């Protein structure tokens, strides 16, 4: 009897001995470090971080990343770049990126820097360290992917997985044309923040709108931190403007929208990167004064829609994990970046930068906001209005306390409404 008990115990011990290492393989394998330089005190920073964490938790729970037959977990290392804060020099963001690479031993850089100026300045640094980077939030400057296309060998490590300013301009213009057709609108006023992507986009839209027969009644560029927009709004009113196109990610844009409402300016506030209006809490924060405000959350998934089968799954998972709906530009794209990187690493079978670059260029994945593919020359995600064709954007309008997707038509949940003081 004693011998049998001893035999059983030995068997159990041996089983444990052989099975335990197998079960803990994931923990034993060194993690793949995702360095995330983000301006974490701002919407475009913290929602991106939440997107990464959610994706990484899901990926790790499902076994991690298969790197040449070995399962390795992802690990997120975030550093606050503060690059969205007024007065913080670009060099601070570069130091953050360098710290992620040298101190935190980041294998990949995902997320930012968030401000275009900082993202552009970080490109040579990424090349120097041969670090594959996927921009997922904030930086909309077309110059980013233009630089990759112009000097591929140097900047081939840089990718961007969300829409860029030219894209956004195209989406804006498509909506302006619809409004022109439907309501006979013809006067456009542009208000932009004095930062690279907003200035650039405002100039582009001024040019494009002029060529498309719009009467551009004004272009006002406000410094970051400006707190009074009355004169610009009065100009818009005096010039019988029908659409105010806003390019601002600063918190003070809420003042602009409240002033618009209080002054009953008879023009539709049509924002692009209008961070204040992107957040689900905007309605409560403005006591409903933000109704009818439109803004572009750049990628589907940042507002509720049925772009793909994955869209609402992500939307619900994010809401469950963070007790808030996906909040704006950066949430769905950051989430997707982790999955896209996982897919590329698994296809490459290694985390070697050049191999991963080659794999990323061949990415073809149906994601949260449509088919994800990168232009092989510029490494910009390929946009589309149909999620089956490419990455789709999302323009939403605040209607009765809800964020209603109104563009593109393929995923729209409603139509653009006009405020009562605009109806003739």
């Amino acid at each position: 009897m004693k011998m049998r008990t001893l035999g059983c115990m030995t068997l159990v011990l041996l089983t444990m001995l052989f099975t335990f290492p197998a079960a803990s393989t994931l923990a034993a394998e060194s993690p793949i470090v995702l360095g995330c330089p983000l301006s974490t005190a701002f919407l475009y920073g913290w929602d991106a971080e939440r997107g990464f964490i959610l994706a990484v938790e899901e990926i790790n729970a499902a076994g991690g990343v298969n790197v040449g037959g070995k399962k390795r977990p992802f690990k997120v290392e975030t550093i606050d770049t503060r690059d969205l804060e007024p007065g913080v020099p670009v060099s601070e963001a570069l130091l953050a990126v360098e710290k992620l690479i040298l101190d935190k031993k980041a294998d990949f850089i995902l997320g930012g820097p968030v401000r275009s100026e900082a993202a552009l300045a970080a490109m040579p640094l990424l090349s120097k360290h041969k670090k594959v980077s996927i921009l997922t939030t904030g930086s909309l400057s077309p110059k980013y992917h233009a630089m990759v296309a112009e000097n591929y060998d140097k900047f081939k490590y840089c990718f961007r997985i969300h829409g860029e300013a030219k894209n956004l301009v195209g989406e804006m213009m498509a909506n302006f044309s619809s409004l022109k057709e439907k309501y006979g609108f013809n006067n456009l006023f542009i208000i932009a923040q004095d930062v690279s992507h907003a200035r650039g986009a405002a100039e582009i839209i001024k040019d494009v709108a002029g060529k498309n027969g719009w009467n551009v009644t004004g272009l006002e560029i406000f410094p970051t931190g400006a707190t009074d927009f009355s004169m610009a709004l009065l100009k818009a009113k005096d010039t019988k403007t029908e659409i105010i196109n806003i390019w601002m990610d600063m918190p003070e844009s809420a003042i602009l929208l409240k002033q618009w409402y209080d002054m009953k300016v008879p023009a539709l506030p049509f924002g692009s990167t209008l961070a204040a209006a992107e957040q689900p809490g905007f309605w409560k924060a403005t006591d409903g004064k933000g109704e009818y405000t439109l803004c572009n959350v750049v990628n589907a998934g940042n507002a509720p829609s049925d772009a793909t089968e994955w869209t609402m799954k992500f939307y619900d998972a994010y809401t469950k994990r963070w007790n808030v709906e996906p909040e704006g530009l950066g949430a769905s794209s950051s989430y997707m970046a982790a999955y896209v990187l996982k897919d590329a690493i698994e296809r490459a079978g290694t985390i070697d930068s050049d191999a991963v670059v080659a794999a990323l260029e061949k990415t073809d994945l149906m994601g949260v906001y449509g088919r994800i593919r990168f232009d092989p020359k510029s490494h910009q995600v390929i946009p589309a209005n149909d999620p089956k064709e490419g990455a789709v954007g999302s323009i939403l309008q605040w209607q009765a306390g809800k964020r209603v997707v109104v563009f593109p038509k393929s995923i729209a949940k409603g139509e653009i409404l006009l405020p009562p003081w605009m109806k003739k």
Partner: protein
Amino acid sequence: MDILIYGTINSVALALYALGFALVYGISRLPNFAHGALYVTSGFIAWSARNTFGLNYPLSILAAMVITALIGAAIYRFFLIRIRGMEISEIIASYAVALAILEGLRWKGFKGMTYTLPAFIPGSTSIAGISVDYQRLVVVGVGVVLVTLLWLFTHYTRIGLALRGMAQDERAALMLGIDSDVMAIVAMALGSMLAALAAVLLLPLGNIVVESGYNVLILAIAVCIVGGLGSWMGAVLAAFIIGFAQILTVVYLGSHFQMVIALLAIILTLILKPSGLFGQQKELEERV
């Protein structure tokens, strides 16, 4: 007309930003670089009192003003008192306190654009065909009343006279039995309360964000330097000069030059008349 209306509103807003800073410096020669942080803090206190603790709006405002005044007094009692008279140290210490407060708020999760206070009176009206919301009219009204009350306080009340005595000649005031530390604490509390008043008046126009603490400090300093450090009446006049200059700049030059005005005003004042419009500091040096 629009320039006149919105120029006045902008000027009164600048005056409200600056009055607390000017008062503290005018009375106790303390450059309170925590002024902007106190402004933001009071906004979050009012928000928390209303949304977290469920107080009604007037009580939330009162709580914000009282607590901010106490914080201001504590900053002097526990930090600045030890370095009193060493202006550079006072600047560094008060700015360090400001950073600690602002970063502390951010660390505690006060970030984002969804923290707001409601307007005292919702809605808007039309003045000479120009739309103006009631909250901005409240700002102007309270600003005018505040300046009047401050003048009465410093000219007709015992504490006000003691504060002026301190401002004019600290040694003589000490000889007359006025405790300079007590007066400095009173000045800090009053200045902080003024920052809180500015916050509860102006924050309903937009939202409460940590970063505005730095902007408010810069604007307050610009107004005080142009008006003359130590002169709160000078600060009011400077607020009108800078306020109208900003609005005129937006109209005739371009909105992106708006923020430059305040900084340009500091540079020009320091080059042409370092004592400012009504300042007494350095005036003797300038004459020499």
